[in-house]
């Protein structure tokens, strides 16, 4: 039985118009898809884990440690967004280097690690370039290289494929599952595509109206025909 990577217990977050509550446990090393209609609270769930949102009640435990009062940078978490992951005025290598030292004081060994990480995601030779001219897929791979050098055991991906075309999505998914196998990290990703779940996920958290509606193995989830919101998500009419 593996250890628990993420444990949310009795977590509630209050906004002006609604109240979200989360309870779940995610084992170490799992690959979890987070799905659900817009406004269900997927990004808020990530914000709670990453420390961008402070819960009103409940506890967030990551790898056995209570996260109360811990800043985002003090948590064992790396996060990758759909877009704007890279500082546009910094070179690709600097953007990755920030994962080693946030003030960008890098020695030769650190620089070597940056180069190796870029080579690992297939961007060797792009170190000096600015992110602007890169394609969307290349930019996301730079962000992954940064997550690689940071070596945080939990990786949150907030719709990492949304800006990519189908061929690139498949390529990224392949890269992600390889990286996960190499690093053994726990990975959560938000997605709107059932095929991403089929490709990458072992488990699925399905959110609706600010709560976790389903938490089950990906295979079970993908063969569901109910409830209606899940059927809609999977592109099936309710039976």
């Amino acid at each position, binding site marked *: 039985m593996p250890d628990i990577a993420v444990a949310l217990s009795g977590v509630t977050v209050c906004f002006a118009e609604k109240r979200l509550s989360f309870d779940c446990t995610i084992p170490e090393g799992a690959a979890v898809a987070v799905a659900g209609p817009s406004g269900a609270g997927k990004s808020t769930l990530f914000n709670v884990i*990453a420390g961008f949102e402070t819960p009103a009640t409940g506890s967030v435990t990551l790898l056995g440690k209570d996260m109360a009062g811990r800043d985002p940078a003090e948590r064992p978490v790396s996060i990758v967004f759909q877009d704007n992951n890279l500082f546009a005025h*910094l070179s690709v290598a600097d953007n990755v280097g920030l994962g080693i030292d*946030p003030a960008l004081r890098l020695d030769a060994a650190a620089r070597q690690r940056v180069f190796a990480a870029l080579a690992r995601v297939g961007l060797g030779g792009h170190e000096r370039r600015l992110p602007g001219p890169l394609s969307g897929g290349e930019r996301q791979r730079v962000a992954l290289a940064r997550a690689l050098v940071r070596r945080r055991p939990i990786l949150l991906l907030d719709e990492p494929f949304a800006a990519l075309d189908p061929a690139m999505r498949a390529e990224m998914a392949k890269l992600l599952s390889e990286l996960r196998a190499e690093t053994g990290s726990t990975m959560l990703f938000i997605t709107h595509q059932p095929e991403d779940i089929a490709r990458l996920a072992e488990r699925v958290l399905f959110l609706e109206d600010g709560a976790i509606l389903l938490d089950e193995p990906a295979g079970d989830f993908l063969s569901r025909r109910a409830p209606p919101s899940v059927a809609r998500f999977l592109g099936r009419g309710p039976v």
Partner: protein
Amino acid sequence: MIFARAERRALRAAGGIALGFVLAFVGVATAVLLAHADGAGAPLLDAYIWRVARFTLLQATLSTVLSIVLAIPVARALARQRAFPGRVWLLRLSAVPLGLPALVAALGIVEIWGRQGVVNDLLRLAGLSSPVSVYGLTGILIAHVFFNMPLAARLMLAALDRIPAEYWLTAANLGMGGGATFRLIEWPVIRRVIPGIAGLVFMLCAASFTVVLTLGGGPAATTIEVAIYQALRFDFDPPRAVLLAFLQIAVTASLMSLVALLGRPPEEGMTAGRAIRRFDGRRRRLGDALVLVLFTLFTAAPLAATVASGLAADFGRLALDPLLHQALVTSLAISFSSASLSLAIALPIVLVPPLVDAADSGAATRLMARALPTMGSLILLVPPVVVATGWFLVLRPLGETGRFAPAVITVINALMALPFVVRVLEPAYRTHLARTARLALSLGVTGRHRLRWIDLPALKKPFLMAFAFAMALSLGDLGAVAIFGADGFVTLPWLLFSRMASYRTADAAGIALVLGVLCLLLTLPSTAADRRRQGPADA
């Protein structure tokens, strides 16, 4: 092809008239200056003139550097602290100096920083004996920073607010400290907008007339513009005034080419994407609060002093002063006509260039489309005091110059407002055209009908904004009036200036309050309207 044939003809005619009018008005003034310059050249290039030129550039440089350096912590604090009570009001306060007549601000600054002011009281309390003197370079710098630092801070804040929200999340996730955040995220953005802001501030300070006239101290602290005024009005030495006028044109011309190289001042654009949340705000709350309190004191104190001493004035007596009535009527009439004229000239400047988008426009149209926007900023090259000097020399042989003063001042004020008016109208019209032009043309709604049903309703807001701003600028202007000021012709700023000069401070404070309130009523709605709403962070 986004205009009907008749519309194109009318627009070309309007463009021609506007172009001819501005060129003739500035051209006559320059030609007369040239004529007077004959034979009066070299011996006048004396030490005094060089000192004046040097001081002009020195004070402008120092003002620019101070404004920019002080604006950076203010902009950073405002960008970092996104939700505190009164933030909106602080942003509004930072827009106030821009709409305030220089003379009113100078008076407020004297109240605070002058010999009897709060600052010197505090210094004396602290045991310092030698007071800060507000007259001379110090006062000029304080006033220029008062006007331009809030402007610079607003423009920098807008640039910081355009940083993608994900950057701050990533920075927090990576654990960037304050120094690294500044070096790696904020400074690259601020550095990019500094050249544009610096160019703008430098131009404003180099051509600053009223501040230097009221706070400058004698020949040691005089700029070219003030020296022109003194040569003309006190020394009755037109050749010297002419020489100084050309020196001013030479200086502004080189500055303008420099500024053109530096790039345009940045816009105050909208932010896009998700709401910005800063995670480095919590830890810097104390420092930021200190910065913002100091900023508020610096900006609000002169305003508060103006209001306080203004309210202490004997309004009962002032209200019955026939000279004040006359000044008020004259000022309102001049500012209303100059704002109307400014808009009338601005329209072709804004409307004609899109004509060229059509492939079939002739060479004449194309030339006009290029010349018109340049005309719009001609007054930056040939400053108001210089144009006024030219026309003063034109009209002097015809007798009493005061008789022509209202007309000339109206035109000069209209030209002064033109760059701002065009800057408000141009983007609005461009957007409007992109939205409606083809549709209107295909429906056959053209000419008068297009103006009435499509253009005017949609452009009403920028129109009113531009008009109000032009009116406020004219209301507060002292430069052109100072050159022409004569018995029997008074405007509000001129009356205020002469009351200050004759040490009738209570009256001056009352008039300053009236003038300040009038101008702020005109400018505040527009500056408040262009602030985007700062919503709270959402899910």
